[in-house]
């Protein structure tokens, strides 16, 4: 058996670092290279301020001010035929810029084009809901609130969607620990048994791969079972699989392995 090494905090130290690796950037092209997007961008620029616009992987990315989001998406839907909001969520840039980036991925079925609207908001800033325009934004915005804590105004049902209602913290933020903070670690114990049960139940075992071959209190080896708590440091006897008690079971016919039929053709 392989020697056991503790795996408690494997994720703390990355096992591979390359200081000279530079993240590849997707090439950005000028919007004027595409006939359809040029007109869309001109229409947006006529009414609203556009901070930046470019084409990446045949999709136009338009970076706008956060307070214009509803008006721009409404215009794109009603006048520019972008009739589907396929995806929207937030990206956590709090560590580097102190801001969330919100993106709306839109699709025009008639033009066969995809367009992405991006805007940035501060951590405490709220955003206008686009649920009135696209029903798909209903759950997406709830998920955005659930996972990042971005509050959306004028949403019909601003409530957590995945995590429990009484959850603390926003799990998809970069600052949230993968294995949960203290609230998450004791959530089910606190809720079901109360805080006083913490000492009795004990902390979570975050190393579920841990197996102690000689621990007969909690482990047993199939085919080598011994009574609980037996010391097996000097080996253990072979015990064949027992399906019934050796003396037989009351009112139940004894299973005889010799008499059983093994089916050779499994597709019969």
């Amino acid at each position, binding site marked *: 058996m392989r020697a056991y090494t503790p795996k408690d905090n494997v994720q703390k130290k990355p096992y591979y670092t390359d200081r000279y690796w530079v993240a590849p950037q997707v090439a950005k092209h000028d919007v004027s290279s595409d006939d359809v997007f040029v007109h869309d961008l001109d229409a947006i620029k006529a009414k609203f301020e556009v901070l930046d616009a470019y084409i990446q992987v045949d999709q136009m990315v338009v970076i706008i001010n956060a307070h214009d989001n509803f008006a721009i998406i409404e215009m794109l839907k009603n006048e520019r035929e972008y009739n589907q909001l396929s995806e929207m969520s937030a990206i956590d840039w709090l560590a580097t810029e102190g801001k969330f980036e919100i993106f709306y991925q839109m699709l025009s079925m008639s033009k066969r084009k995809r367009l992405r609207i991006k805007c940035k908001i501060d951590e405490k800033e709220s955003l206008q809901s686009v649920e009135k325009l696209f029903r798909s934004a209903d759950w997406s915005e709830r998920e955005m609130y659930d996972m990042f804590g971005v509050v959306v105004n004028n949403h019909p049902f601003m409530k957590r969607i995945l*995590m429990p209602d009484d959850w603390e913290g926003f799990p998809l933020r970069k600052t949230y620990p993968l294995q949960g903070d203290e609230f998450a670690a004791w959530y089910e114990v606190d809720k079901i048994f109360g805080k006083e049960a913490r000492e009795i139940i004990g902390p979570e075992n975050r190393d579920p791969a841990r197996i102690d071959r000689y621990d007969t209190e909690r482990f047993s080896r199939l085919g080598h079972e011994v009574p609980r708590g037996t010391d097996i440091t000097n080996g253990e006897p072979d015990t064949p699989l027992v399906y019934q*008690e050796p003396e037989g079971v009351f009112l139940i016919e004894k299973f005889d392995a010799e008499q059983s039929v093994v089916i050779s053709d499994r597709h019969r």
Partner: protein
Amino acid sequence: MAQHQVNYLKDGGLPVALTTIDKVVNWGRSNSLWALTYGLACCGIEMMASGASRYDFDRFGTIFRASPRQAELMVVAGTLTKKHAEFIRRLYDQMTEPKWVISMGSCANTGGMFNTYATVQGVDRVIPVDLYLPGCAPRPETLQYGVMMLQQKIRRESASRAQKPKRLM
């Protein structure tokens, strides 16, 4: 009156079987383990396969029930999330005594590969477990063997004495 000696305690005597109350009750309990359908994730598929025709749990008297009030066995098949923990505890409390729990698969045993904030690291943090089945997911044969082990455990228990409710803490 017959001339020959009749041994009433042997087969072919009177239609009488001598036994103890314990054995009869435990025979009944161990061979009519009605299980609560508790498929939480992919292990639930294996649990359904165990109940279907090829593996046929009905042979053991294990019939899946959709109500905790009609069930005495809970096969926790799959990942238990923290959001769901209170509901599994509530359903466990609604089952009538005596009751048993099989924790099926790595996720239910220890949290398995979901070493994250949202997964309960083993259902035994919430409800008392009688039998842990390893595997990801365990084959239906494993679940069958597990149920047979549980039947053996039930037969060993005393039935006449009121069973003490199991406590987690």
